[in-house]
């Protein structure tokens, strides 16, 4: 059993699994390999789904600990535990099409998720007010690009003058496109490099370098 403890086994297993996917990508149509990668692809999804069990355990233990210690506002943690288990029981047993599960999904989850996500807009504005300053060349360009595009995106402006819309389209077609072309190339190159480092066992971000 202590053979499985060694880190090198994980590195070799990762290398082999990745090579299966890489070889299948460059040499498609080889049936056993095609069915193997779709099998492994499904297994990865099953592992990810089972890992949610660890997530529930983590949330549950944190909540129970706060309830036992009667820490500040422990009753809200009891409520978190209750909601989590309620949704789990209704959806887990009845399936994702269970009436009561859908009631909670439609009236709680589907309403609260966009609301909390919408804070991105509210905070974006309160941050923009403080940072879009003509303090130096760079922030001036940041602001200039932002304001010009915003004007071009105002729906009713387009009725009166097409100038801002065509300026906005030019900004996106030329300067902005050049910059984001480079961002995407650079990011892809970064993915390839971090992939090589991880496959060769140099980069061990997924399990830590030395034996703990």
């Amino acid at each position, binding site marked *: 059993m202590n053979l499985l403890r060694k880190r090198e086994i994980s590195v070799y297993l990762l290398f082999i699994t990745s090579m299966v996917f890489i070889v299948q990508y460059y040499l498609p149509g080889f049936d056993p390999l095609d069915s193997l990668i779709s099998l492994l692809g499904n297994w990865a999804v099953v592992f990810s789904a089972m890992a949610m069990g660890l997530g529930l355990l983590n949330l549950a233990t944190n909540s129970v600990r706060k309830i036992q210690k009667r820490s500040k506002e422990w009753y809200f943690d009891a409520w978190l535990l209750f909601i989590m288990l309620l949704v789990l029981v209704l959806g887990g047993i009845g399936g994702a099409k269970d009436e009561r599960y859908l009631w909670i999904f439609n009236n709680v989850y589907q309403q609260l998720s966009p609301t909390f996500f919408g804070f991105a807009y509210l905070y974006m504005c309160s941050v*923009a007010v403080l940072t879009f300053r*003509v303090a130096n060349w760079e922030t001036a360009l940041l*602001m200039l690009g*932002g*304001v010009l595009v915003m004007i071009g995106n105002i*729906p009713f402006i387009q009725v009166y003058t097409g100038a801002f819309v065509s300026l906005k389209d030019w900004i996106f077609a030329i300067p902005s496109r050049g910059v984001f072309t480079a961002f995407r190339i650079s990011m892809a190159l970064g993915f390839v490099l971090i992939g090589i480092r991880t496959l060769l066992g140099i980069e061990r971000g997924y399990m830590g370098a030395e034996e703990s």
Partner: protein
Amino acid sequence: MGITDTVRKLLTRRTFVQGMLIILLIIPLSRPLGLPILIGEHSRAFYRIVEELPPNAKILFSQVTPVVLMGDLIPQAIPVTYQLVSLAKERNWKLYFVGIGSPDGILQLIDSEIWATIGWPEEYGLKYGEDWCNLGFVAGGDISWSTFGSDIRAVVQYDREGNNIDSLPMMQDVNSVADFDIIFNNGEYNTVIVRQWGEPYGKPLMLLCLTGAVVQDVEPFYRAGQVKEYLAGVRGGADYELLVNRPGKAIASLDAISISHIFLIGLIALGNVLYFAEKKEKGRNSL
């Protein structure tokens, strides 16, 4: 002291900025100002392409809208789906709905937002399993998209209702993406769908995407001819509501979007005026 300090205090107090934003959105949402809008070219072209689809067309609709982004994606899906289901019977179109990678759209939002607004397909004379079907959710990343593309049954054995897909009459001669005539996608995954379904099979792609996605993802593919047409955000949704003559949430929110932009530009201008006022003050104090 005086104005610059009170203005700074206001601009840095989150409650003022965010509170004003909410109020300035509620006003035009409850009493639309009726600001004029110009239907965009992309929206007209999108509408024409759907109108001119040949009879007996097999249409794949990838519904992958996550709940958090429904605000900018569902407004286009409603009028486009309305156009599809209202012409499907007379043109004998077959509508296949599927969701790969993001479960919310295909499992919940299609019922609670789209069918709940325009009515179920059965009200348009369409029969489940013969004219339309919901193939449900397929988990996974790039691999699931490419596998669905080449061999649907490798990743989908049961539709969302749980019956075997071979029991659906409309699935008989449908085995891969090559068997569809046109593909719609409502959600993110724009680059993935071009890579996995557009290029390998050369199928026309119609994207219902986020406003913000146009610049980087959608426009380059549209100009390169890999995407046939696209409808961006609430703005595209409002155009389409006018085109299918079903005014709804999208048109109602356009005035609010205009006000939000104008208010933010005003705040940025105020922030700069404040910045230069402070700089002058600091200059005077240090003399």
